[in-house]
């Protein structure tokens, strides 16, 4: 595969990732959010595999496989089971002001690109153009985390943020050393499990997964 085609494909995947990040920002259904999260993982895995193929970095195949198993299969499966058990499968959140959120999101993308620009110039990877997108999707997930008021979407935002970081690692450096990636994956998995247990405790104590009902500890 020629280098220019590879670069174009990488850019295509990156833009898909950004698109999904925006879609998540505006998505009100919990179920659709999980689907979007799974798609994001799939794009990420494909992109990693592509970079592995183009650059002959064999450890990236493992990390693509890891992404596929963890982010496309395992985590969405856990989340699906969770929303079934919590009976929030058809939950729709009321999000105020989606247009404003999207506009701020566009601003974040511009910021992300500006911050990443001087760094991408230093990089020699085929993926260097996408560092800005990676940073932008981290910022967008951060924004999603702030705007959401329910526990499950907040955690999906958190996981999406980790996706963005993973993408940043692949685009700037062809991925972190495998041992680190395994560790991060383990943390994410354990974190999701703990979150799952935690939501039940929250429900038991508050009869709600609405963070607004939970926030009582204020500084007096």
């Amino acid at each position: 595969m020629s280098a220019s085609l590879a670069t174009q494909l990488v850019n295509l995947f990156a833009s898909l990732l950004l698109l999904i990040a925006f879609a998540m920002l505006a998505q009100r259904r919990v179920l659709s959010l999980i689907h979007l999260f799974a798609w994001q993982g799939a794009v990420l895995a494909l992109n990693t595999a592509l970079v592995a193929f183009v650059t002959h970095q064999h450890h990236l195949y493992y990390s693509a496989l890891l992404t596929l198993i963890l982010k496309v299969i395992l985590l969405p499966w856990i989340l699906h089971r969770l929303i079934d058990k919590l009976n929030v499968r058809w939950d729709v959140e009321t999000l105020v002001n989606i247009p404003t959120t999207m506009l701020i999101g566009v601003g974040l993308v511009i910021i992300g690109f500006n911050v990443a620009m001087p760094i991408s110039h230093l990089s020699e990877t085929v993926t260097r153009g996408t560092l800005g997108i990676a940073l932008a999707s981290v910022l967008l997930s951060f924004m999603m985390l702030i705007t959401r008021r329910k526990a499950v979407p907040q955690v999906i935002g958190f996981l999406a943020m980790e996706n963005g970081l993973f993408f940043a690692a692949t685009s700037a450096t062809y991925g972190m050393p495998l041992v680190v990636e395994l560790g991060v994956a383990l943390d994410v998995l354990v974190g999701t499990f703990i979150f799952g247990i935690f939501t039940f405790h929250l429900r038991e104590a508050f009869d709600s997964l609405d963070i607004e009902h939970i926030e009582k500890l204020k500084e007096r």
Partner: protein
Amino acid sequence: MYLLAVLLTPIAGAVLLGLCGHRAHAGAVNAAMSLLTLIAATLLTAQVIEYGPMLAFDELFFVDSFNVFLVALTAFVGFTTALFSRPYMLIEMHHGRIDARRLRLYHASYQLFMFTMLLALLTNNLGIMWVAMEAATLATVLLVSLYRTPASLEAAWKYFILCGVGIAQALFGTVLMYFAAEQVLGAGGTALLWTHLDAVKSQLEPSVLTLAFVFLLVGYGTKVGLVPLHSWLPDAHAEGPTPVSAVLSGLLLNVALYALVRNKVLADGALGGDLTSHLMMGFGLLSVVVAAFFLSRQQDAKRLFAYSSIEHMGLITFAFGMGGPVATFAALLHMTVHSLAKSAIFFAVGHASQKAGTQMMDSIRGLVDTNPTIGWGLMLGSLAILGMPPFGVFASEFLIITTAMREHPWATPFLLTALGVAFAAIFGRVQPMVFGETTGKRLPHPPAILPVFVHLALVLVLGVYIPPYLAEWYRQAAALIG
């Protein structure tokens, strides 16, 4: 290999206590495993005293003068806290606040938490350090919410989300660090190893390191509890069981700061030190001042001392930011004595609030009458943390403030005001708790008093006499950190 023993003992402890952590003797097993970890850590320390810094297992682990005393301190406070938690948890069971299953969760998570702390300290790989820091959050989330009260669940949720988001920023910083390193060291495993990075730090790309350090500061700074990223800290300290507050305050904050300073060394090498020192001084000073003024508004004893932790971590960050041999020496000493004094205070406060049945300071009165040892422990601990001579905190604060006067005179009024306000707030609160009129009753199990006084004695000793090898480590580490 002692190093391996230091890491594997808590893992074995976690497995063992995962199986039998609900039994009556689990507290003793927990303490025994912590003692084994402490013995291994002591042997490791002895080895370092004898042979100097060491690399182990394909350079995956690294012990030098900067982390060796933190390893010993972590293992020591881990052991004394386990001693304290045995009667404390029995009393909590007696009061019906936890059941056997949660006791098992507590014990297993406690050992796992110790493992993650020691791993973060001993690893040479900045990526693994991040993984261990995140794992430390995960190990303690369910401990903060152990009582399952609405307030504790909220505290744990805040802790989970805020520290998770914060530490994600640190991951981005680590990715950038790896990116900068890769340009010099080439791709592959060595580009995240601290010893390799340290060797080439002057060649790292400054623009990347600037951005990396900002992200790392925000990320690890959240875990250190620097203002304005601190809002999880008082809640998590106040709502969790007291042994957890003691290890969070005494150990986790230290280890997070350690991670930050390790990265600061690299950033300094590339940037020359101005940016990192200004940022750290700014965040540190802000934390000291804001925390001091929040102190006087607290009603809850554990929240009070949580804010005091923010204040002290701010002071240490400020001292690391000033740099130079004296300030860095003082920062390292302050890390040690703060950790010892603060955990001792939490032990005393924990038993005091168990006696009173509440953490509200207005309801805790006259500890010297009902239980003089707890009362005196709390009083002496508070005096120690407030920087009264001859305790060690006085020595380190004195060094920090005199250095600030000489090099950054503008900062001194803020520091002195903050320390004065903190003194008035804490002493004014603790005095009636210790000496007021009381109606308290006795505890169903004898409280653990020994750890309180052992810690305070050590803080006292460090104020009067610092063992030569410890001073030498501080000096070497200060030369390293710059």
